[in-house]
Every structure is written in structure tokens, then in C-alpha cells.
């Protein structure tokens, strides 16, 4: 039985198949509307995450399946002290597949080891959030037509940003990618990641201001710079505007650059940018549903050869 714990659990070839399927689904959703008839997805969310949970539920419903679950630990038996291992054994009797979010790192892996059904890691603390990475890759592939041979700028909190670290790890496997890390010095990308890039001979640059490099980018991946990450208020006030994307800054960018964001956006992308065709973060949320549909089908073994033929 296959689970998804880490974006690297799937090889590049397997990801290609998954994205082919997701694209087929997006092209003809009606064809897949009953693929999961009679199947049930359990969403076990030990901490709230409306967006991710609804995205999974939407995916299953669009495949014709049913959903059940809980959306916070207090409404589950975890509040009574039940272990993750026991919970998943019971859930395995109720559902065919499970998406689990847990504040403790590695909890979905423990669940997978005891589970009778496929388990998808829907986020475990600051550790992994593989379906966000699959969503990001899928969006790039669908809108750029390729995964590879581009310059990607990652902007904002690069020190604590889990989605950024996962995305870099996933992109390292493709050819011809150049990274530009745009962050305040306090939130720069960790050394263990730049060490890995150096070791793999991958080109990267680190800059402090978005304006400096926005003109070189094929993709701009925005993340939030949170006030509480700074040592003092003065630095926050001085630096925060560097990381807010506005129409003025976007004028410096290429016509075909894509702006991605894992959402929720707070103020790091000005709302005026939403109408620019380069702003694709809401499309990204839509791709998130398609890629989760493809993932559910794949893990349940419901993919036929005709599904992934382009």
C-alpha cells in the first residue's frame, strides 16, 4: 500500500504521471465524476486548516466519493488521550483513504505504519506539507508547460517557510533551475539548503530587495513575512515594504512571469495585483484540488492507462 508523507516519496516519473492525470481531470472533470463512487475519504485534522481540509473534501466529492472526519483535536478522541496509532486503526474500518494533519511532526508517518488504508500527510507541524508542494509543481507545469529550465524567485520568510523548503527540495530534481532567494537577512534561507544547492551544482543568488531581481524571474513565489519573526519592531518596519508585491514592482517583471503564493495572503501581495494576468495564486488553489483528485485516485489504485494518456 502506498502513502504520501514527503513530496520526494514519488519519483520524477511518478510525479509526471500524477500531473498528467491532474491535467486530464482539469480538461474533462465530468469524466472523473464517479471514479470514487462508494469510496470514503477521512479527513483527520488535529489542528484547524480550513483551506487544506476543504481542498481534500472538494477533491473527493468531485470524484463522486464521500467524506467524513474531524477538524480539530478537541472534537476527536485524541482529546481523551487516544494515540494516533489507535485512531488510524479505527479510521481504517470507516474509510478507504485518510488525509491527516497533526501538530506533531511525524504523526502521519506513525499513522501510515499502523494503517489499513493509504494515508496522506496533510501537514505535520513545521515538517512537511507534500500536497502543497504537489500543488505548486502542478501549477508551474500547467502554466509554464514545463518543470525545469527557469529562474524562480522565492520571496519573504525563507528561514521558517516550510512550503519554500519543500518546494526547493522538489525542484532540485529538475534540470536548469536557478533560484533567487529574496529575504531580509534575519529570514534568509538556511545554510543546509544552500549547501545542498552548492553540492548539486545548482545556481542561486541571495538578494534583499525584490525590485533588484524581479526582472530576471520566470516565477515569483511569494510568502508572508510575519512581524513576530523579527528581533525588533524597527527592523520589521524598515524591511516589510521590500516584500510587498505591488503593481509598481510588477511593472519591472517580465510579461510572462507567474506570481504564486501558497495562501492565505495577508498583505504581502497588494489586492491591486489580483487583476494582473500574471497573478495565478487563485488558479493555484484550483490546481490544488485537481492534484489532490489525481493523488486520491493514484493511492486508491483507480487509475487506468487511458487516464494519463495526454
Amino acid at each position, binding site marked *: 500500500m502506498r502513502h504520501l508523507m514527503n513530496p520526494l516519496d514519488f519519483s520524477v516519473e511518478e510525479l509526471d504521471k500524477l500531473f498528467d492525470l491532474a491535467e486530464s481531470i482539469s480538461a474533462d472533470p465530468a469524466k472523473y465524476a464517479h471514479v470514487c463512487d462508494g469510496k470514503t475519504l477521512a479527513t483527520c485534522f488535529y489542528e484547524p486548516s480550513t483551506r487544506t481540509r476543504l481542498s481534500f473534501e472538494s477533491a473527493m466529492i468531485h470524484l463522486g466519493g464521500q467524506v467524513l472526519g474531524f477538524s480539530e483535536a478537541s472534537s476527536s478522541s485524541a482529546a481523551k488521550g487516544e*494515540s*494516533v*496509532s489507535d485512531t488510524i486503526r479505527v479510521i481504517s474500518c470507516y474509510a478507504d483513504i485518510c488525509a491527516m494533519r*497533526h*501538530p*506533531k*511532526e*511525524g*504523526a502521519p*508517518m*506513525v499513522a501510515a505504519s499502523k494503517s489499513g488504508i493509504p494515508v496522506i500527510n496533510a501537514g*505535520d*507541524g*513545521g*515538517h512537511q506539507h507534500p500536497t502543497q508542494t504537489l500543488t505548486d509543481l502542478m501549477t508551474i507545469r500547467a502554466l509554464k508547460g514545463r518543470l525545469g529550465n527557469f529562474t524562480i524567485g522565492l520571496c519573504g520568510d525563507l528561514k521558517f517557510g516550510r512550503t519554500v523548503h519543500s518546494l526547493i527540495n522538489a525542484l532540485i530534481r529538475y534540470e536548469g533551475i536557478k533560484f533567487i532567494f529574496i529575504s531580509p537577512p534575519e529570514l534568509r534561507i538556511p545554510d543546509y539548503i544552500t549547501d545542498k544547492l552548492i553540492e548539486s551544482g545548482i545556481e542561486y543568488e541571495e538578494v534583499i530587495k525584490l525590485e533588484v531581481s524581479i526582472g530576471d524571474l520566470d516565477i515569483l513565489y511569494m510568502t508572508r513575512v510575519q512581524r513576530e519573526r523579527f528581533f525588533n519592531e524597527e527592523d520589521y518596519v524598515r524591511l516589510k515594504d521590500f516584500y510587498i508585491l505591488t503593481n509598481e514592482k510588477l511593472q519591472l517583471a517580465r510579461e510572462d512571469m507567474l506570481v504564486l503564493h501558497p495562501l492565505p495572503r495577508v498583505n504581502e501581495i497588494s489586492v491591486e495585483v489580483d487583476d494582473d494576468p500574471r497573478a495565478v495564486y487563485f488558479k493555484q488553489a484550483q490546481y490544488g484540488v485537481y492534484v489532490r483528485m489525481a493523488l486520491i485516485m493514484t493511492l486508491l489504485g483507480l487509475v487506468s492507462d487511458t487516464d494519463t494518456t495526454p
Partner: protein
Amino acid sequence: MLNIGKIEEGFVLDHIKAGKSLSIYKHLGLDKNADTVAIIKNAKSAKMGRKDILKVECDINTLDLDVLAFIDHNITVNVIKDGEIVDKKELVLPKEIRNVIKCHNPRCITSIEQGLPHIFVLADEENEVYRCKYCEEKYAPKAESDI
């Protein structure tokens, strides 16, 4: 000069870093069985200045060399049979270690899930880095009792 008799069957663990023998004694589980053990602390050593030595009279198939390699792979392991050294074992860093060390990451599932084995995986052989199998946090000894 302290004299300790020969052992008939078992191990002589030589070149242990001075002061580490008790920790090894504990991690090999020697405090929990009836084997005869001699712990020699701060013995003179031409190579190391001071060293510890452990002599264990036991069945030679019972010692967990993986744990020993994780603690210190520079330890010399002499295998004794019929009072003679019959083999010298090379210690190789184990790929995985189970229930020897604990994950100190408070956000790790091992901090709350009952009965879960603490498993560490060798992530970087050159720098001897082990990471928790669940949360992937790098192992860093915290307390004196840690390795």
C-alpha cells in the same frame, strides 16, 4: 598496578574514550544481565593518554555492535574464545538505531505517542549525522546521560 584475570569467552572493548565506559556499559544493557564485567577506567594508553576498557564474559553472539559503533566507532572490539583473541571486529556506523537515543524535538510525535520506538536513521555518514525517522530532526546530545 591493577590485575584483572583473563576471560574465557566474550569481548574486550579497548580504546574507549576515558570516562565513557559507564555510558557504554549502560547502553549495551550490561546492567540488566548477569554477565561478568570488568570496567577499567583511566588506564594508561600510549595512543590516547588515558582510556577506558570493558571486559565482558559472555556468549560472543550476544553483543549489539551497532550500538557500540554509534557510540564510538573507534573502539577496538577483541573477540575472545577459549581465552584467546580470535577476531577483531571493525565497527561500522549502523544505518538505523532503535531505542538507544531519544528525540529531543518537543514537536516530534515521539514526545506524546505511547509505545513508539525511537528510531534514528544515518543521514550523513561522513559527518556522522543521525536524524529522527519521524520528524527528521538532527540528533544532538542534551544531557550527561546522552551519548
